[in-house]
């Protein structure tokens, strides 16, 4: 089966994203059109073989009755009949196999395309999209499309072909009989489409109620302490029972729908069967038809009538597929971030000198986040950004790796406009250490080497971990560096996560560093270690620190104080501390705290 796992032919997303739904489906199966064609051919062949089988059976009976039989002829006839069944079986197999092949391969490609496309969408897209929604589209909507390829696309063709071939075969026996036999077909089709549509609605309501129930259960479980604290078990039981009953009632409605539809449509189809069979039987008696032909007819009649109900289902399912497909293409239509355009790439890397010239930035029009930001820093300098929440610090550092681009003004790196560097190149030169970095649920080792685009020796990893003051912590875990992080492994504290990110950044060795300096989640002992680790990391790199505390930035080469998107103060510690303003206020608090504490203790002692 290994041939099936070979790489598939890539497809152009822009082609998928444009065009109508049918052409999208066509694009999605590109490379597998021959398979799909084969699937359909064999579907037809299977239908032919089956029809032939019934014709043959009729012929056989007539021959036996009319001429009597010779043993050897009989064997040949029986064997031919068997051969037809086998041919039919083989064709069905080929058809299902090829349809399955097309469906699974196309879906695998679609999954990969979506995964890749989603991760390459610009950061702005992600900050607005809901994770759950993206996930839903990339999983259950994709599965709906897969089922379309596997079932509906081939199923509709099959039912139509079986219908046509059976009809033609019956028409050859007796045209009038053929027409009589399909009188109720439109009714069955309409009724079943109507039913399956209603059914899918009822099913959705049922599923939704299931979700309500799950949420309720989840809240009850996560709030178990509150439930117990107020001794509200009975109340919870009542509430759950209420929703549980609703689900029961919806399910019962669902059961009623099935119980009515199937028997009722059975009556309609059976009435047709009886009427047609009776007509045919009369024809035999009146000599218009042979008994063999009658048997052929009875066999084919079933294939003419009964699959129509299923056709109704398939058509409704297909309309649901189009909804899913639409949801998928909206994602595909969004443009990916261009990682490689603007190919300026200095031969001996960058130095790290950065200039902001009249930089303005807004996420949306009229909502200015940064206004006329001007400053210049030399390579290797440390720039501290100070300011309250929403003052623009985070937005400023988001501009450097070009997560966002400036609205007006320009940013120069080593004298060259940032827009002339590709995003890929820029990001390879910038390291980011966040306050509480996101870790992936894989081993600690892989988290440290995550994003290090080269082979890293064990020694290097350990050295980096030591430098980041996390080595000892890692060794305390049972599996050391192979310990899994996250849900199925250890839970790391914010400070530990930050130090893992420091180790990682040390290995990447970027020229520019962006750091969120917050030690709020760290206790006293580790604060010193982190301080040292950070100092080591900052050495010789142009560093931007988003600072929350004054102690950590006293040595910065430049301090920028932000308020409402503007730089309100600029300078080094010695200058700012002697200037009236925000910085001075903050600085003086430290001294005030010490004396206040002293006073307080003395006061208590004297009581």
């Amino acid at each position, binding site marked *: 089966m290994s041939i099936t796992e070979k790489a598939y032919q890539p497809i152009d997303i822009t082609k998928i994203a444009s065009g109508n739904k049918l052409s999208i489906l066509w694009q999605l199966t590109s490379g597998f059109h021959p398979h799909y064609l084969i699937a359909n051919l064999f579907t037809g062949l299977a239908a032919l073989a089956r029809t032939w089988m019934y014709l043959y059976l009729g012929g056989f009976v007539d021959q036996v009755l009319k001429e009597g039989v010779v043993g050897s002829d009989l064997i040949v006839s029986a064997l031919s009949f068997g051969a037809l069944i086998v041919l039919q079986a083989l064709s*069905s197999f080929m058809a299902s196999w090829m349809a*399955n092949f097309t469906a699974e391969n196309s879906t695998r490609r679609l*999954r990969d395309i979506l*995964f890749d496309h989603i991760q390459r969408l610009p950061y702005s897209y992600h*900050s607005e999209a809901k994770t759950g929604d993206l996930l839903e589209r990339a999983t259950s909507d994709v599965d709906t499309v897969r089922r379309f390829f596997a079932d509906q696309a081939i199923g509709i063709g099959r039912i139509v072909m079986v219908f046509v071939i059976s009809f033609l075969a019956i028409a050859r026996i007796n045209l009038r009989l053929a027409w009589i036999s399909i009188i109720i077909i439109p009714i069955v089709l309409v009724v079943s489409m109507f039913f399956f549509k209603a059914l899918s609605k009822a099913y959705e309501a049922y599923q939704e109620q299931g979700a309500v129930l799950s949420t309720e259960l989840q809240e009850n479980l996560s709030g178990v302490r509150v439930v*117990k604290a107020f001794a509200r078990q009975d109340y919870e039981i009542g509430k759950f029972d209420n929703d549980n009953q609703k689900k029961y009632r919806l399910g019962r409605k669902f059961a009623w729908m099935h119980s009515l539809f199937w028997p009722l449509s059975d009556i309609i189809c059976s009435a047709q069967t009886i009427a047609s069979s*009776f007509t045919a*039987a009369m024809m035999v008696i009146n000599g218009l038809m042979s008994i063999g032909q009658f048997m052929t007819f009875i066999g084919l009649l079933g294939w003419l009538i009964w699959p129509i109900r299923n056709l109704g289902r398939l058509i409704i399912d297909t309309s649901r597929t189009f909804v899913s497909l639409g949801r998928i293409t909206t994602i595909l239509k969004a443009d990916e971030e261009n990682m490689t355009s603007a190919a300026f790439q200095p031969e001996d890397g960058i130095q790290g000198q950065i200039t902001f010239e009249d930089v303005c930035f807004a996420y949306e029009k009229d909502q200015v986040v940064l206004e006329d930001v001007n400053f210049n820093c030399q390579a290797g300098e440390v720039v501290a950004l100070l300011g309250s929440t929403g003052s623009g610090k985070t937005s400023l550092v988001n501009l450097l790796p070009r997560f966002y681009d400036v609205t007006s003004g320009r940013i120069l790196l080593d004298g060259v406009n940032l827009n002339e560097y590709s995003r890929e190149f820029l990001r390879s030169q910038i390291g980011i250490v966040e306050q509480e970095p996101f870790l992936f649920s894989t081993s600690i080792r892989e988290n440290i080497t995550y994003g290090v685009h080269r082979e890293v020796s064990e020694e290097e990893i350990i050295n980096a971990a030591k430098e980041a003051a996390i080595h000892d912590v890692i060794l305390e875990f049972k599996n050391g560096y192979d310990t899994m992080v996250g849900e199925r492994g250890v839970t790391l504290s914010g400070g530990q996560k930050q130090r893992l990110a420091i180790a990682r950044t040390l290995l990447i060795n970027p020229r520019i560093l962006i750091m969120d300096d917050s030690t709020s989640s760290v206790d006293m002992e580790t604060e010193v270690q982190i301080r040292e680790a950070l100092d080591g990391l900052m050495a010789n790199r142009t560093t931007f620190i988003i600072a929350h505390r004054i102690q950590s930035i006293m040595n910065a080469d430049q301090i920028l104080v932000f308020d409402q998107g503007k730089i309100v103060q600029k300078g080094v510690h010695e200058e700012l501390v002697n200037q009236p303003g925000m910085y001075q206020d903050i600085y003086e608090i430290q001294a005030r705290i010490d004396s206040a504490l002293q006073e307080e203790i003395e006061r208590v002692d004297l009581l």
Partner: protein
Amino acid sequence: MSTYYDENELDDEVNLQSGVLSRLLKLLKPYWVLVVLGILSIALVSWLDAYYTVLNKRIIDEGILTRDIETMTRLFWNYGFIVLGQVVAFFVMLLCVGVQGERLRYDLRKRLFNHLQSLSLSYFSKTPIGWIMSRVTSDTEKMGDLLTWGIIDTMWALTNIGFAVYFMLQLNTTLALIVIISLPVMIIVSFKFRIKIYYHYRKSRKANSKMTASLNENITGVRVVKALLREDKNLENFKVLSTDMFRESYRAGFLSAIYLPTIQTVSAISLVLVLWRGGLMVGNSMLSVGTLQAFVSYIMTILWPIQDLARVYAEMQNAIASSERVFSLLETKPEIHDRENVLPVDSLVGDVEFENVSFHYEDGEPVIQNLSFHIPQGQKVALVGTTGGGKTTIVNLLCRFYEPSSGTIRIAEHDYLEYPLDDIQSRIGVVLQIPHLFSGSIRENLRYGRLDATDEEIEQAAKLAGAHDFIVKFEKGYDSDVGEGGNQLSVGQKQLISIARALLADPDIFVMDEATSSVDTLTEALIQKGMLQLMTGRTSFIIAHRLSTIKSADQIFVIEDGQIAESGSHKSLIQQRGIYYNLYTKQFRHDLESKFDPFGGAETEANPA
């Protein structure tokens, strides 16, 4: 999350000796009428199914071939009546099975939920929520399927095969034997295929949940992915997962594609034999044409019940494993329960006393050791100390979320084990560090404190707690939706609501785990005021982080390693210059820093990543 626990349980070994089957059947007892009716109807349906073929034969032999229009018409009428009868039976069966299934699922969910309410806190602290959720949601579905369609499909298949065999034997023994001999082959082949198909199907489900997890992580961590240029590598990793998924799903599909044609081929052999032998007999007038036709149609339709039988069998393993897990949950005994001859009380006003209380979890590590203290009615106690020292365990013991491993806790002069659990818990008001609200309106959440509270009382409580002002600022006021887990509200607002909720309950003893997270100054002041309201006149235990709370306490306990390391008033403890002194000065610094820090601001900044 629920998928994770669900799909991870792939290799469930089922031990049928464990009596799980008989327990499953016992579950059907309440619906035995529906079950019996369903089974009888399906048996009727399959008998009539098999009889159609006989009727067809008679129409051919007695009607058409003899040109007896009268008999033929009569037979066609019979045909029509049988259709009607079958349709009615079919209807009864569908309805019985459908309703019984829903009823069973409903009852199972209810039993599980009710049982969960009786379990102790210790059960929930060691059992992941996702695991429990899977039991209540997907396992009950699987059990429901097995006990409805599993049974009906099996019955249908068995009766269908049985009746077909019976009619074939009636029609012609030789030909019938040919068919019967082929049956075991078809059955064995079917079972083998179905089991394999289901195996790959479940593996594909497992691969699917891994794939989804990976995608989820990549979206949540997209900022890191982008910053570290991991796109190519991540796609490569994802492709491994999507290929796994592809492989299993493809295999299941491939096996399904080959399965039916295979048994059709097997049936072709018996068909060839029947046609040959039968043809000879028809030629010698030893067999009627109708009979031959009947055999052909039996052979061609007997595939379906065999298929169904195999499918039910393959899925049964999994459903039984589900049942075992559900039964095991239902069998879990609550660790904390009422003793015999409890003493109902409607007030817990009185002193609180711990006497040599020790506590350890199942694994044996002592958390609280020989703790003794005595709190007179109405006093405020502040518990301070480092994380993991045992503060939370002390209040958990007090609320009787846990019971002491040894020693006695007395409330109002009685060992609290003598009281009913409900009476204790409804007389102790608890405000948690991370307040938990339920989806619904603010009013509903407040009413949780006292279910029969009037709207005025609710408002009164909210005013006392200082929550009223922000509530009325919402467009819908008290009817505003708090969102799932209260996520539409800020932490401070949630705290105020949970204080109001506790006030409404009007407890005799008040327990609070003070929040460490900072809220804005105004809200903070409101919270302090609300707490003061709650503490007035009530014996209160506060796991305290705020200096003001600590200082206003009548007694302060410094808890270290499960014991009281220091105790006394603020003044005496400061003068001791011990652990408390260190904690206090550190906290003092921290408080002032955050108070004066213009950048710390109100509630912590939401990280845009």
